[in-house]
């Protein structure tokens, strides 16, 4: 019999349990913020921030919108942001497919699942970047403060100085969980390929 690594092969019991744990931890993403943007300025010792969740936004939105109108940035209206309507379903889909991986316990399914997560992650970050670009560049030309050549696109990840504010964009608990789930899934897959050769022979 040939040993072919891409046969539909079963995974070890410990991997299977770990996958279940990963799927269940994704449920937590419904209950914590995904991403955090914080703003620091000398006259705000208490700090300002906004959090993006799967289906809502929290934080000092009113204050941030109030400040943004000076530079002509659009007001952030969570009700008109479409992503907040379908992100819960995307995560739901990922959880469902993760359960399928756990139930059928096939390595190839795990690979497909990981690819799904990676594509979703990249698509999400790109979409976020586009949103940040739009808000930071498409400014009202009648705004009171116009700095020639300036845009107010917050960083994707990291810190950037925007006039008197230091804007810091970082994953929050939910975002970290998704990253961790993706990385752990990859590690499980690598483990299965490298170290689970005995099962291959059995089939």
């Amino acid at each position, binding site marked *: 019999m040939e040993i072919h690594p891409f046969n539909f092969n079963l995974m070890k019991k410990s991997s299977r349990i770990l996958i279940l744990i990963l799927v269940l931890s994704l449920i937590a993403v419904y209950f914590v913020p995904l991403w955090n943007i914080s703003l620091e300025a000398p006259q705000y010792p208490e700090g300002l921030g906004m959090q993006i969740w799967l289906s809502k936004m929290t934080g000092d939105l009113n204050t941030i919108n*109030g400040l943004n109108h*000076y530079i002509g940035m659009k007001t952030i209206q969570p009700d008109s942001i479409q992503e907040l309507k379908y992100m819960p379903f995307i995560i739901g889909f990922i959880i469902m497919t993760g359960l399928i991986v756990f139930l059928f316990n096939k390595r190839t399914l795990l690979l497909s699942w990981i690819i799904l997560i990676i594509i979703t992650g990249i698509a999400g970050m790109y979409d976020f970047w586009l949103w940040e670009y739009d808000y930071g560049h498409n400014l009202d030309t009648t705004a*009171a403060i116009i700095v020639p050549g300036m845009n107010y696109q917050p960083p994707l990840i990291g810190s950037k100085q925007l006039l008197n504010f230091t804007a810091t964009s970082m994953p929050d608990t939910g975002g970290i969980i998704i990253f961790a789930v993706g990385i752990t899934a990859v590690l499980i897959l690598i483990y299965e390929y490298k170290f689970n050769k005995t099962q291959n022979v059995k089939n």
Partner: protein
Amino acid sequence: MKNFIKKTAGFILIFTLLVLSVNFNSCSKKEKSGPSLSGDEAERVYVAPGKWDEFYYFISGGFSGQLAAYGIPSGRLLRVIPVFSLNPENGYGFTEETKPMLNTSYGFIPWDDSHHTELSQTDGIPDGRWAFINGNNTPRVARIDLKTFRTVEIIEIPNSAGNHSSPFITPGTEYIVAGTRFSVPVENRDVPISTYKENFRGTISFIKVDKDKGDMSISFQLITPPYDYDLSHAGKGPSYGWFFFSCYNSEQANTLLEVNASQKDKDYIMAVNWKKIEEYVSQNKGTMMTSKYAHNVFDESTQTARSEMLTSTRTFKPEDIPGAIYYIPCPKSPHGADVDPTGKYIVGGGKLATVIPVFAFDKIKAAIESNQADGNVEGIPVLKYDACLAGEVKNPGLGPLHTEFDDKGFAYTSAFISSEIVKWNVETREVVDRMPVYYSVGHLTIPGGDSRKPWGKYLLSMNKMTKDRYLPTGPELTQSAQLIDISGDKMKLLSDFPTIGEPHYAQGIPADLVTKNQLKIYKIEDNKNPFAIKSINDARAVREGNVVHIYLAATRSHFTPDNIEGVKLGDTVYFHMTNLEQDWDIPHGFAVMGNQNSEMLVMPGETCTLKWYPDRAGIYPIYCTDFCSALHQEMQGYVRVSTKDSNVPISYSLGNDKK
């Protein structure tokens, strides 16, 4: 011979020069012989930029009528809280919502003289919920909410004049007292002044305080002999249930009191058993006396004050309350009646006395029980001085006034005439230290110094004469407060600073007891002011007969609406401004040209109303008076006032959005 003359002349010259230079030196010395600086005073009082002080000191404004909050040890003035006097700076007493606070049975009064402040206590310890302060001229007591540092209640005291021995508090904040410094006829009526002894009375009032909400109501009044009731303090621990009032002018003089009230060797401390009088109150005893007095409450949820006129109080004459009231002789024209933290000792500060008498409560009780009295005044037993006395402090300085205590068993008394503070041991009555103060100290204060548990670190001396202590400001000079370190055996002067008005008394409290409850903004959803608007879309101008209501929203950096037309001569205009910000420290102000009124300052989430009666047609600018944002200078608008017979309709707009 020539040589000799030369030498002598030389000596005389040198000697004269020496004498003159020594004289010049001592003349140019600005320093008086005071306490020497030992080095770290500056560090002790330096509070670095961005850091907070350890204590709040709430210092009475005296003739300013307000209450000032200072940070100690830096001495920084944090805020002047308007209480009894108008404050055009923020509209207190000018806005429609706050005008009722200054209402009295005599009508609207724009000022009073606020002498003493007292903090609410729980179990005998200051708790940081409320500050109380008295109004001396038109007798009143005010309550300030320390979450918002706003005056929320003022109650007038009927049948009284000169509310001085006020607003001292019982250890559980059960009662605040008021007491008359000036006797007047009760009920007040037209009699010759010389009938003082027959017709004039003193009045001691016990104001009940609701333990949760702080609301005040007059529980009962004692109509007493016409002495001048000066200061008072509550008993605590073993003396809980009693209150002690110092009184002078037992000579019952009505003129030239300076001489006539200083004749007798002893006046009194009046001991009142309020616990016992509570029983009489619950049995409906006493006489209900008709009187007219105002009770003003600022409702913090509707952000509006309401004034009601009350019409009667329960009064007791001494004969109605046997066993509840006693006089204890005290030298001589006493000022302070101070109770030590253990509640065992009562100290009388006789301002013309040469000793400080310290009475022991257990001896007072024993004297009452064994009837050791020397006659009576209108049926009130006068207990024997020696029977009540624990001891006298000898050499207490000249003109002892007022005593506070630390947490190590020491008392500190202010001596006005010798301008010093004297530290003595409460148990042994020995003077252990004295410190000169500049100049002429009135009251002194230690945080918790009149409570069950003082914080014995700082003492503030509030002095009555300033003269050369600070840069001069013409003939009218500030008063001064001096900060003294009392944590060691010897007192140490740390710093001094000028104060607003004339501080009479103050209360200190560790800062975190107040900071933990602080309100930063008013939540717009909790705003129940009837004239509030909750969003820009509700901003409007409305005519109701010849009254125009303009509902303005204030946000950075524009009013909505900011162009209003259609007001006519003869209209009364009310600007109801709601600050829709929910961000910390972003107030907006408002003023309109030519208004015979002040500005108003509106905090985030708050609504205030300013009245305007335009007297000529034309265009009137309105603008934000408190620097709120980078474009504050652009935060302005216009109101058009047309002639009486014009038919310009009411219209209002912002930008291109016209209604």
